[in-house]
């Protein structure tokens, strides 16, 4: 573990999310089992240099169950999971990069806000998909310009 305070804060975020959902009576047993699955997934890596696919996907069921009960509880838990997965592991490319982590947090919170204010599903899904596609296009164009400058 590179940074104990960030890891502790991430763990605290997961706990805060669960506390936020507590008044709405979430399925505690299921949550604890899924948290165990996530913790087990944290220790798994397909290869030393691969991206943290397994821990990221292992956290999804936990966040899914928590956000069914409380959306902001799920947002907090998701931020905590990202903190543990992306920052806590020395092998991660984002290890030690606060900018990377804060940007991901901002996007998750922004997504939570959009979902919170939306009355239906289609518009937020379109916004998320369009945002991702647009960013991919912009990055592709910037990369093309960069490579062309080297020729």
């Amino acid at each position, binding site marked *: 573990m590179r940074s104990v305070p960030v890891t502790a804060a991430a763990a605290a975020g997961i706990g805060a999310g669960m506390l936020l959902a507590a008044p709405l009576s979430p399925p505690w047993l299921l949550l604890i089992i899924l948290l165990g699955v996530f913790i087990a997934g944290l220790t798994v890596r397909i290869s030393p240099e*691969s991206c*943290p696919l397994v821990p990221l996907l292992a956290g*999804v069921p936990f966040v*899914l169950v928590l956000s069914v009960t409380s959306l902001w509880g799920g947002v907090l838990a998701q931020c905590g999971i990202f903190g543990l997965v992306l920052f806590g592991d020395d092998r991660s490319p984002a290890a030690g990069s606060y900018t990377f982590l804060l940007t991901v947090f901002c996007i998750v919170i922004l*997504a939570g806000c959009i*979902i919170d204010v939306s009355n239906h599903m289609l518009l937020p899904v379109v916004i*998320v998909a369009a945002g991702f596609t647009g*960013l991919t296009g912009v*990055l592709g164009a910037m990369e093309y310009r960069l490579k062309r400058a080297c020729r």
Partner: protein
Amino acid sequence: MRATRCTRAVIVAASALLFAALLLDDTAFLLCGAALLAVPAVAGYVFYTGTRTVISSVIVTRSVERPVVRQGASVGVDVTVQCRVPPGMQADIREIIPPGIVPETAVPALRLPAAGQVTITYRAIPRIHGALRFSGISIDLSDAFFRATADLTGPAYSGPGIQVQPVPYFARRTTPAGTGERETSRVGVIKSYGVRSVREYVDGDDMKSVDWKLSAKHNRMIVREYGGAEQRPALIVIDLPDRAADPDDPAFVRLINRATGEVTRVVQMQGTVSLMIISGLNTIGVLVAEQKLPRAVSFIREHAHPRQRLHAAYRIPTRNDLRSFRITLERQEDQEIPEDFREYLYRMGKVVSRGILSYETPAFYLQCSRLFKKAPFGGVEVYSMLDGDLSHLRLLSTAAREVRLGTRIFFAGSYDEAERRSRARFAGVPAVEAIP
């Protein structure tokens, strides 16, 4: 920028969650999908900024062993790459081999340290002639989420250029021994007429080299593999005058300059040079197949000054000369000649016969003969003042002729045509060439 397999899996999982959110009309799935998509999106931007950092900090320094290279000859290349790699990223450097150049050894791909430099060293063989320029480098960048390849071929990363001289430039001047081209079992740029081996046809083989009879016999395509032909540089012999000669004599200085120029040309054009420095019958030094020009030039500077001749010669004949003389005497005896002259021929014949029987081969001749047989040369070029006795040059040219090598003699002096012919005859060569 290409996503790794893991990143693609994350994107697929996020897309599935978003689709499930639409299908089930559930915000929880939407949150998970959007959150998962955020990771590759931000990682992509971080990877782009890292790529920009690496590319903007790259400094390439490339040095080539020789700026002028013979077509088909090997040349050493050193590429030093210096750049800054952000943490979490890995950069592997590869050299881009330009068309027309074939690497002799495998070109390694080296991983750059976080802040530092790597040097790629390899040898390349130019296959086509003309001006060739090294293209640049290729950087393979990767992190856990993305990977990309950037070809840096701009002016800051490419070069220097090399001038590749075509093979026909190196054809040796015609000598009495022939064209100087020899067959070799190695496969080279120039093919000889000799067949080195036969083998099965592979893609890219010239259809002209297919042996149709063998192919029909074995029911599969068989091609002939021809051997190569190679040009071998001539042995350059510098014949120094005796110590009594003036070292500042303009003719001697001209002779040494011309020999040094020839050595330089041979090293640049053919890659190696062989040198022999003699003073009459005395061998001062021998340098065989020297590749480094400074070493060859310093060898000349060290030895090329008038030397005391420990062993002197005066009209030393070879055994063949004695035999020829005896045959000449015998032919004259058969003609109508006065009796006293016949007596003279008889006595001379006896002297020559005794000389043939008790003939001892000069050590200088044996040295030359051994050298010519041991090291394959394309010919012998002698730089001499042509003063005094020329027996040693006669011995040298005879030893060269025995291994089918031609001898050319260059001199720096002012001899008229008759004198030149006379000295060429004494030296055992058809003609001598003046250094202007």
